[in-house]
C-alpha cells in the first residue's frame, strides 16, 4: 500500500525531475536525451493511470506535502490545515489522465518534428515544466499553490510559444499572451489574498467549509472567475488564443489545449467546491452559460473564414471550450434544487466533463496533424496546400477521425458528449440547443474546407517533393487516435468509469471538504 500512497507526489516530482535532469542527459548526446524525454513522459502517463485507478478504487486521495505522514491533514490540535495538501478526487484524476495523454503524445511528436532546430534540451525542460504546471493546477488543494502552478505553466508556455524566436509573429504572440496572462495571474493572487485575509486559511476544502457569501467573497469570486476565464479562453478574452496556439510549435499547442483546460478545471473547482452551495445568486452560472454560448458562436464564425490551418483550429478550441462552459454552467445553475439537478443538471455536467476529455484528445490530434502538414509542406496557409492525401494517407485518415469527432458526427465520441449537452440544455431553453447545433454545423463546415483544400484535390507541382512523415510523428498521433477510437466504441464504459465519478465528485462539495477537515467541520 505504501508506494501507491505517494502517487500524487510522484505525479509532480517525476516531470520536475525530467525538467531539471534534461540538461544533464543532453550532455550524453541526442539519442540519450530523446530517450529520457520519452521515458519520463511515458512514466508520467503510467503514474496518472495508476492514480486514476487508485482514486476510482478508494475515493478522494489526500497527500500532505512534507508532513509526518502523508494523510495527516489536521495535525493534533489544529483547526485548519497549514501545509500544502494535494487533494485528488475523481475529477482531478480524470483531468490528470487527459493531460498526461496529450503530454505523452506531444513528446513522441516532438522527437522528429523539432529535430532540425537547436536548443531542444531547453525545449524539453520547458515542455516538462509546462506539464508540471498543468498537472499541479489539476492536483493541488491549496489556493496559493494553484496560483504558483498557474505561473509555472504560464512562464513555461511564454517561452514555448516564442520558441521560434526568429519568426516575428511567434515573439509577438508570446508578448500578447504574456501581457494578458500576467494581469490575470495577478488578479488570481489578489483574490487569494482577499480570501486569506478574511478566513486565514488557504486550503480549498477548509475554505469551502467556513465560507459565507459576503462582499469580500463576491469580489474574490468575480476576480477568480474572470481571470481563469481569460486563461481558458472564454468569450471576450480569447483573443490571445489564436495568436498563441497558431505560432507555437505543434506539440506545444497540442499540450496548451490541456493547459487551458486546467484553468477551466480551476473555474469548476472554485465554483463548485470552494463556493458551491454558499453562492447566493446564480450570476456565475448564467455567466458561464452566456460565455459558453458567445464563445461557441463567435469563435466558430471566425474560424470558418480562416485560411491558416492552426489559426482555424485554435478558434475551434475556443468554441469547444464554450461547450464545456455551457454544460457545466447548466449544472451549476441547478445545483441548488436537487430535483432539477437529477433530471437534467447532472446530465449536463456529465456532458461538459466528458467533452473535456474528448476535446483534449481530438483537438490535440488536430494540432498534431496541422504540425504534420507544416512539416510536409513548410507552410500553414491552406491556399498553398493540395492533394496531400497521396503523400501520407495515414495523416489523412487520422485527420478525418479527429474532424468527425470535433464536428460531433454520430459514431464519434464528440457526438456522445455533445448529445448530452444538447438534450440537457434543451430543458433550460431551446435557443441554447439551437446555438449549440449551429456551432456544430459550422465546425463541420470549416473542417470539410480544411480537408478538401489540404488533402484532396489535384497534386500541386510545388508539393511534389513534400517530405515523408517520420514514424515517431505517426506514433504520437496514433496514441491520440487510439484514445479517440476507444472512447468512440466504448462510450458507456467511459461514462460509467471516467465521467460519472468525476461529475459526482464535482457536485459533492461535502465529500471534498470532509476529506480535508476529517468530517469534523
Amino acid at each position, binding site marked *: 500500500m505504501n508506494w501507491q500512497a505517494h502517487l500524487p507526489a510522484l505525479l509532480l516530482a517525476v516531470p520536475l525531475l525530467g525538467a531539471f535532469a534534461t540538461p544533464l542527459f543532453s550532455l550524453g548526446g541526442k539519442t540519450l536525451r530523446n530517450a529520457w524525454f520519452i521515458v519520463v513522459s511515458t512514466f508520467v502517463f503510467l503514474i496518472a493511470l495508476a492514480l486514476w485507478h487508485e482514486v476510482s478504487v478508494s475515493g478522494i486521495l489526500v497527500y500532505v506535502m512534507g508532513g509526518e505522514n502523508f494523510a495527516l491533514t489536521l495535525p493534533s490540535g489544529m483547526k485548519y490545515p497549514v501545509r500544502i495538501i494535494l487533494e485528488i478526487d475523481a475529477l482531478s484524476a480524470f483531468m490528470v489522465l487527459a493531460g498526461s495523454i496529450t503530454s505523452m503524445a506531444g513528446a513522441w511528436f516532438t522527437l522528429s518534428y523539432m529535430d532540425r532546430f537547436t536548443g531542444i534540451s531547453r525545449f524539453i525542460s520547458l515542455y516538462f515544466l509546462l506539464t508540471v504546471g498543468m498537472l499541479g493546477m489539476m492536483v493541488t488543494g491549496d489556493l*496559493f499553490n494553484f496560483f*504558483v502552478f498557474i*505561473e509555472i505553466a*504560464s*512562464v513555461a508556455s*511564454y*517561452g514555448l510559444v*516564442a520558441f521560434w*524566436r526568429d519568426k*516575428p*509573429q511567434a*515573439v*509577438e*504572440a*508570446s*508578448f*500578447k499572451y*504574456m*501581457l494578458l496572462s*500576467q*494581469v490575470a495571474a*495577478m488578479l488570481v*493572487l*489578489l483574490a*487569494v*489574498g482577499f480570501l*486569506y*485575509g478574511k478566513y*486565514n486559511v*488557504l486550503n480549498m476544502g477548509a475554505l469551502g467549509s467556513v465560507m459565507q457569501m459576503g462582499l469580500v467573497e463576491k469580489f474574490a469570486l468575480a476576480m477568480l472567475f474572470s481571470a481563469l476565464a481569460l486563461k481558458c479562453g472564454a468569450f471576450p478574452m480569447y483573443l490571445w488564443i*489564436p*495568436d498563441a496556439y*497558431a*505560432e507555437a510549435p505543434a506539440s506545444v499547442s497540442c499540450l496548451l489545449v490541456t493547459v487551458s483546460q486546467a484553468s477551466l478545471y480551476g473555474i469548476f473547482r472554485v465554483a463548485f467546491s470552494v463556493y458551491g452551495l454558499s453562492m447566493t445568486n446564480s450570476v456565475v452560472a448564467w455567466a458561464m452559460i452566456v460565455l459558453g454560448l458567445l464563445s461557441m458562436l463567435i469563435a466558430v464564425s*471566425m474560424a470558418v473564414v*480562416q485560411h491558416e490551418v492552426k489559426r482555424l483550429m485554435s478558434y475551434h478550441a475556443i468554441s469547444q471550450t464554450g461547450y464545456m462552459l455551457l454544460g457545466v454552467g447548466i449544472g451549476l445553475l441547478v445545483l441548488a434544487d436537487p430535483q432539477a439537478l437529477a433530471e437534467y443538471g447532472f446530465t449536463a455536467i456529465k456532458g461538459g466533463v466528458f467533452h473535456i476529455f474528448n476535446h483534449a484528445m481530438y483537438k490535440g490530434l488536430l494540432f498534431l496533424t496541422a504540425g504534420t502538414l507544416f512539416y510536409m509542406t513548410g507552410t500553414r496557409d491552406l491556399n498553398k496546400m493540395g492533394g496531400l492525401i497521396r503523400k501520407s494517407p495515414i495523416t489523412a485518415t487520422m485527420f478525418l477521425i479527429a474532424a468527425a469527432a470535433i464536428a460531433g458526427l454520430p459514431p464519434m465520441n464528440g457526438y456522445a458528449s455533445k448529445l448530452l449537452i444538447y438534450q440537457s440544455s434543451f430543458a433550460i431553453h431551446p435557443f441554447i440547443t439551437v446555438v449549440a447545433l449551429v456551432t456544430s454545423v459550422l465546425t463541420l463546415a470549416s473542417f470539410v474546407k480544411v480537408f478538401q483544400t489540404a488533402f484532396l484535390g489535384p497534386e500541386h507541382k510545388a508539393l511534389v517533393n513534400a517530405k515523408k512523415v517520420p514514424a515517431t510523428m505517426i506514433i504520437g498521433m496514433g496514441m491520440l487516435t487510439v484514445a479517440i477510437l476507444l472512447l468512440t466504441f466504448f462510450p458507456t464504459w467511459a461514462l460509467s468509469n471516467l465521467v460519472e465519478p468525476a461529475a459526482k465528485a464535482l457536485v459533492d462539495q461535502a465529500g471534498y471538504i470532509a476529506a480535508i477537515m476529517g468530517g469534523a467541520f
Partner: protein
Amino acid sequence: MIIGNLPFLTVGILFLIGLLAILREKNMIKIAIGITIIESAVNMFLIVLGYRLGGDIPVHFLKGEVDAMVLPTPQALTLTAIVIALATSALMLSVIMLLFKHYGTLNVDEIRRLRG
C-alpha cells in the same frame, strides 16, 4: 477608519496606476514597468494583510517582550510572488528586446501582424 485602511487604499491606487500604464502607454518598456507596478501592488497587499497592530517580527526568539506578532504566512506568500515577478519581468524584457530586433520599434501599436 481611513487611517486604518490607508495601506489598502495605496494598494488600490497602485493597482490602478499599473493598469492605466498598461492600457494607455504606447512604449512597451513602460508597459513592462506597468506590470511590475501591478505585481508590487499585489505583493504589498499581501504583506499589509498580515499586519497586526503593534505586532513584532514573527520569529519567536527574535521579537522583544511584545507578545503580538504579525502573521508570517503572507510574508512567505509574498516571497514567492516576488520570485515569480522577477522571472516574468526578466522574460518580458527579453521578449521586448526580441520584438525590437524584429519590428525595429518599441511602439505596441505597430506590433500587429497577427490580426483577424
